[in-house]
């Protein structure tokens, strides 16, 4: 396959290589989420009773389950602000930072696996 060469040495064009891959990844994510959505009902409970006793096990939407889990054993400022912002920041800056001890892919995988584990933990706990 001969690809359009970038004018900058050591680089390739983001289109079509990256964009195509990202489009495929987006399509795969949508497919997986749609399958999950049609096969499994959302774990919603009945409407909360404002006058009733507080429910002990209220769950956040799935995207926040990991954050909610960290809130159980860390101060709210750390778990709710510092860690999420830091994680997003690190992922965003990975291409631009030079790491010697940890490979960039490794760092990305560690963050993503941590998020997934926290989400699953939050779901089952």
């Amino acid at each position, binding site marked *: 396959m001969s690809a359009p060469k970038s004018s900058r040495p050591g680089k390739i064009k983001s289109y079509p290589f990256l964009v*195509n891959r990202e*489009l*495929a990844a987006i399509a795969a994510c949508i497919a997986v989420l*749609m399958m999950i959505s049609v096969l499994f009902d959302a774990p919603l409970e*009945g409407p909360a009773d404002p006058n009733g006793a507080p429910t002990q096990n209220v769950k956040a939407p799935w995207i926040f389950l990991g954050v909610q889990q960290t809130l159980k054993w860390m101060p709210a400022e750390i778990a709710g602000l510092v860690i999420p912002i830091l994680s997003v920041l690190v992922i965003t800056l990975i291409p631009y930072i030079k790491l010697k001890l940890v490979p960039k892919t490794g760092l990305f995988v560690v963050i993503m696996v941590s998020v997934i584990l926290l989400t699953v933990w939050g779901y089952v706990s």
Partner: protein
Amino acid sequence: MKFISPMTTSVCLASALIILMAIIYAEYRSRNTEWRQYQKKGIELSVEKLKRGLVSEHSQDARNKIESQIASLLFRPLEPIEIKPFNGKYPSEYCMTCHFGIEDISASHPSEIFGCVICHGGNGSDLTVKGSHLGLRGGRNPARLDLAAQSCGSPGAEAGKCHSDREHPLLNRVDNVPKSLMATNAGIIGILRFQWGLDEIGQSTYSIKKVSDGKVSLKEIPPEMLPNGDYSLADSHFRKFCAACHLWGARPDEKMGRLEGCPACHAPYAEGGRYSGCDPTIKRFEPGHAETHSITNKIPDDRCRACHNRSARVGLNYHGEMESEQYGAPFVNGFMNDRTLSDDRFITKLLPDIHHEKKMGCIDCHTAQDTMGDGAIHGRMKDQIEIRCEDCHGTYEKPPQTVIFDKYSPLASSLMRSSSYLKVQEGAEILVSSKGRPMPHIRKTEKGIFLTSKLSGKDHKVNVITGRKNGHQIKGHERLECDSCHSAWSPQCYGCHQLLDFSQKGLDHMTGEMTAGLWAEGRTYFRFERNIYGINSNGKVGILVPGCQVWNTVIDSAGKVIEPYDSAIMQLKNKKTSIAIGPTHPHTTRKEVPRCVDCHLDPKALGIGDGRMKYDRETKKIITEPIYNSRASGLTIDYPIDAVVDSDGKILQGTSHELSRGFNGSELRRIIAIGPCLACHDRYNDPVWSLPGPYELKPSCIKAMKSGSAH
């Protein structure tokens, strides 16, 4: 496109395919939702029901109406059904979308107005089975006693103050019922623990659940095994035997007619606990359901009989039924007959209560307070029951008491609404119970007293005995209960032989768990003819029946008897034993009464045991020759099992109720003393019996007896 790798292409194609499949499946699900399937089935069931009604309908107008309803249902589109409870006062709910065709719980609780969530809880805005039932109260039964206060209306209930915090405390049924005897079983527990030697007196301090009325508090019945390792036979027996019948009992697989909480009495029941209404979601071949999703205040007798078929057995007696000796005879086509109760006990048909014969039901006599309590904790049935024979029929001296019906009286007007048949005019004279509470179904008119049946609406003329000299005027008989003479028979179950077998497991009805030890029981023999008399717990002369005459046997897991429980008689705290007799009201009322000699000269009636009785002139004592020889029959007692006292009035058996006892020596002598008079004066209306006692043989009597003619 040459820049796209095969991998990327494959991922994109696979993803597109999955997305397409997901969309198709989502569309399929939306076209075949659970609610569509249920609603379709609900429409079919409703059409079937209407068609059944069409077959039996002869009026053309009514037939046209039914046919139009059927047509309307058949062309009805499947769609979500929205209900706005109380004109939108509460959030909209869509329960009827699935529960299409379900019966209104009652005419005063129309689903169109109440909706479902007010009573059942749940999430009415959801259209999935799982989502809509989130937060459901009590599964299929929101009227369990632990939930009724919330579901049926306490001050904190969603619907407001329906059956609590009412204008009259007796109307706070959801608060009163848990304190009533059918919920506490305090009477059963009290007598059981007393009769098995645990407690000093028969007044219970225990209940099914911990409960208090502010004055009396009852603790929850202890476990079989106490923390110190002691095993309580009495508590085990209660938990595994008696506790099968109480309003707290959870019975998901019930087949004997005993439902839980309010539905135990108020819901209709079909054989096997099967539902046969039009709700498409309720399984029709599953036990433990009411017959339909409905409740009524017109409680049919079978609801009472579901529990009241053992012990005093009043539910059976009233209908003229008595357990037979269980041979299943006479055989039919070579097999045992099918005259059985729902638990397969064989029955004998006897003379029913005249009130039953006249088509009156249990609730025509028994009031709401009799069954649901009055908010106070009672230890005895006699304390909770407010109806007495005299309340309707009066006494010889005193007619029934009445009050003027006031339609603004919360209690009277509410009681009147309990049956659609009751129509009482303002200012009418209505009768009151022995506790002075109004009974609007019984009214006094110029033509006499009439009772309107709450079940059928039929008017019954009430016979009032006040001033009627057909026996009621006899001196000394004012101490008799009405049913002492007017009971045709009583269920006498002699010898209660209990076996606790630790080689098997038994169901603890309180916890629903199977634990070591299965109880079984047998009897010495059954009788129903000729009543036994003594003094009951009201201090009146009443009927006594065995209750209970307990011999306990306990065997270990290897089948070996655990001493001393080898047909052991329990020793009571009051120095008596577990061989006891108890007072009862048989509910076998008849107009006809025994002859004078049937009581005054019958040793069984006198409580000294069935047999031959003669007067010994030398010792001037009554001597009896009992028919039943207890010792020779293997029983470890030295008196006949049907003898409460000996001929001198010495106590042989204890009684399960305080104050109750057999006749003492003085009473026996007075009763027997008129024996010689009965040779001539054997009619209730004999003028002699209008004279004050004591009665003595006069020279003219002796002369008449010698000559064989009247004097």
